[in-house]
């Protein structure tokens, strides 16, 4: 199954979710979600706690199935391939669709190795083998992209555990970007961070969205309105409304969206 770019059927949509249903044991967490995620820009998934935001996000790179007792039904089209089809390589899906988790968990190794980890696994620098400097350049490049390079350039071989939470989250961003994903899934990436670090991450996301499709889960309406180009609004496992952010915030169609935006519910 080839997930590469040229197979894309609809060049304006990077991911197409088609009638996605998810059950945790007997509880249905997502009900018939269908939505398109446009190419590039930031698509925000918003909604109150427990509405299935994270479930939806994690179903987009098949990380959801690591949970016990989960059942997934439906299709997610990525470059013309349904990622849930038999024969699709899960590892490749997760490589091309990266995830930034809410709380940073650096890998138990040095700062440098954290960024190099994915590249080594996928043999991305294999052509220049024996020339470790290529990997060095890449590590520097992705640490710069995540806005962390200046702070860690003198201690690349120190443990990643010694960094502050804000730095760790930027390291996780660098680590995720280092495998060069086409799509970046962000699950409340600033929820564990102080406002300054959070702002840092947001700035990086704005820079990244020029070339990357970003799907952002957030429970902060203000963050969504700051960052989002498109919005998917979930309510109790159902999709209420989705579309361009401007229209969503200024002229919502569904009464639940109107009440949610005005702060009456959720």
């Amino acid at each position, binding site marked *: 199954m080839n997930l590469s770019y040229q197979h894309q059927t609809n060049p304006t949509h990077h991911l197409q979710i088609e009638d996605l249903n998810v059950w945790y044991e007997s509880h249905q967490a997502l009900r018939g979600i269908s939505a398109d995620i446009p190419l590039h820009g930031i698509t925000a998934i918003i909604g109150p706690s427990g509405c299935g935001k994270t479930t939806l996000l994690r179903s987009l790179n098949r990380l959801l199935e*690591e949970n016990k007792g989960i059942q997934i039904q439906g299709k997610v089209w990525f470059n013309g391939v349904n990622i849930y089809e038999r024969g699709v390589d899960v590892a490749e899906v997760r490589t091309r669709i990266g995830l930034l988790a809410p709380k940073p968990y650096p*890998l138990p*190794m040095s700062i440098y190795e954290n960024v190099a980890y994915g590249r080594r696994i996928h043999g991305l620098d294999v052509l220049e083998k024996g020339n470790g400097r290529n990997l060095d350049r890449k590590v520097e490049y992705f640490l710069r992209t995540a806005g962390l390079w200046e702070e860690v350039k003198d201690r690349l071989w120190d443990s990643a555990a010694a960094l502050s939470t804000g730095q760790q989250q930027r390291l996780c961003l660098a680590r995720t970007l280092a495998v060069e994903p086409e799509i970046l899934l962000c699950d409340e990436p600033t929820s564990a961070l102080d406002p300054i670090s959070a702002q840092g991450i947001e700035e990086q996301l704005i820079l990244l969205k020029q070339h990357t499709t970003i799907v952002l889960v957030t429970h902060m309406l203000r963050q969504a309105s700051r960052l989002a180009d498109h919005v998917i609004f979930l309510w109790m496992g159902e999709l209420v409304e989705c579309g361009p952010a401007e229209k969503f915030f200024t002229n919502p169609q569904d009464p639940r969206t109107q009440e949610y935006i005005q702060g009456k519910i959720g």
Partner: protein
Amino acid sequence: MKIKRKLTEFLVNSLMVLSTLFVVGCLLLILGTVIRRGLPALDLAMLTQIPQGGYYLGKEGGILNAILGSLCLAGGATVFSILFSLPVSIYLQLYPSSPTTRNWIHLSLDVLWGIPSIVYGAFGFSLMLFLGMRASLLGGIIVLALLEFPIMVRGMEEAIHMIPVELIESSYALGATRLETSLRVVIKQAFPGLVTAVLLATGRAIGDAASVLFTSGYTDQLPYSLLRPAASLPLAIFFQLNTPFPAVQDRAYAAALVLTVIVLGLSIISRLLSARFNKNIIR
């Protein structure tokens, strides 16, 4: 009411302190006895010589055969056991298997853990008879590996279970397979716990007498072949304590002291080892 609550608190507190003192006291008594009787009998010859003629009557010689034998037996068994325990515990913790299967495996491991070591010895002995093997170092290693296996697997599983799910998932999210995640992330993160599990199992194996009684036998020779019998410290203690001579019995305590020091040494070495790998661990 207030007084009653305070009294209860005080009573329970004192009980906890007393139980701690009791346990520590027992340990000190055991160590005290071993040191008091063993230390005077311990000399260089005991550590560097094999039993000479009449050793068990109180004459010249030492227990180097048993020291080296025990190290070979426990060391070999530990290596063997790690080769099986690590894959099994990683499989049980990281690979999807039905809860029923896992429960059955855990039940089997717990039963194995509870089996008295003399039964392992008898099992090993009948297996060796069936294979036409004689009592040998190899036989002892295999039986001790079996003895170590359930202890090691449960300890390793616990160590792997302590790893945050998010950490493992963050490796999956980078497109790493389960194997890559296991080898590059899980083992590193769980390392101190894995070392503890190995140590616990090794400690059990090196101190076990019943399982090696029939399987590795006993000899006054140094262990120089896997297919020859090998001596061990627990049996050295047993045989020497069984003699009617107080001088030889004291040597049994000296052997016990050597065994204790070896276990202590293993513990210290493994702690230093895991501290070296500790700095990268995410808490």
